[in-house]
């Protein structure tokens, strides 16, 4: 119910921010409760979400990257929480697979720095305005984005052949 109220308020304040008909994964949104946003105004909305005295969503709990399928767009989901009012909200932003760009909210919530690096690392979503956007979990010279659904494991890594079948097993 929180998300619906947030959606209404965003519709008033940021008319362009809401994404239309996006954010639902498999066509079924029953039981799911979220705010679907367009990527571009996200930074302004984020600042407002944090600072608005009625919302005060001052804690970013989690950023989840999702790959909706081999030919589908990517999605970034933000779980927000208010330490003051003890309510939470979920923001979803769908970005095209070819050019996944989302504004960084690292200046709004400091933890977004690392969460965004993780999403960049595993999904290849670029966060514009991020202070230090590089891989975090994988080596910096890794190729590809492993959590995408169409990712294939490399044959070799630094000249070492990745064994696909173990010895004595076949």
């Amino acid at each position, binding site marked *: 119910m929180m998300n619906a109220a947030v959606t209404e308020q965003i519709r008033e304040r940021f008319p362009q921010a809401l994404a239309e008909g996006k954010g639902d994964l498999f066509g079924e949104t029953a039981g799911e409760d979220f705010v679907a946003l367009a990527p571009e105004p996200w930074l302004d909305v984020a600042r407002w979400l944090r600072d608005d005295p009625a919302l005060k969503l001052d804690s970013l709990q989690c950023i989840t990257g999702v790959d909706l399928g081999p030919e589908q767009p990517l999605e970034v989901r933000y779980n927000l929480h208010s330490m003051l009012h003890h309510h939470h909200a979920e923001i979803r932003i769908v970005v095209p697979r070819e050019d996944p760009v989302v504004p960084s909210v690292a200046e709004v919530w400091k933890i977004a720095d690392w969460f965004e690096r993780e999403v960049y690392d595993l999904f290849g979503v670029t966060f514009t305005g991020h202070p230090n956007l590089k891989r975090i979990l994988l080596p910096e010279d890794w190729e590809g984005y492993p959590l995408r659904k169409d990712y294939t494991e490399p044959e070799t890594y630094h000249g070492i052949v990745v064994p696909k079948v*173990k*010895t*004595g*097993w076949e």
Partner: protein
Amino acid sequence: MKRWLVNIWESVSTLLIGMGITWRHLRRIRKGNVTLQYPEETWPRPERLIGFDHQHYNVIRSRLHVDIDDCIGCLKCERACPVSCIKIETVKAPKEVDLGLTSHDTKKRLLVKRFDIDMSECMYCNLCTYPCPEECIYMTGGPNSHKHPIDYEFSEYDRNNLIYRFAALSDEEVEQRLRVPAPPVTNEASHD
């Protein structure tokens, strides 16, 4: 100056309290000792009594063992394994061949040609033992110790030795086991 003296006093007193604690432990070593001298003494195993239906469930996480004579080749354990360390190959037996019964009196219809478990990859989650309809895959020891005693110490020098081959039948053996028995000889009847 007062703060300085209080600090010194606090340091000395709290340090002495700490030294008192270690001294007490030093004195009570005979009672408080927790060391287990491993190869000679081993950890006492938990009691075999477990509350819920312990005939069927297994609370020991040690080495996997398969009573291959009881296996009916249902592949449930292979599917349950999260790390795919179980590999089973089966051959369907012709109708005429009798492969015998398991200890649960189930008729075996598949010949298990290969049953490998790679214990170097096993994560000891125990998930393979629950679905087994014949209770033939289990961790050694615990409630199963009458079937197979506990075995923790199975380290090997070669990693390949940790692949336990519970069934490894060659093609000839398979053929031999699955040979359809000749129909009963009826020579005498024709003679008449």
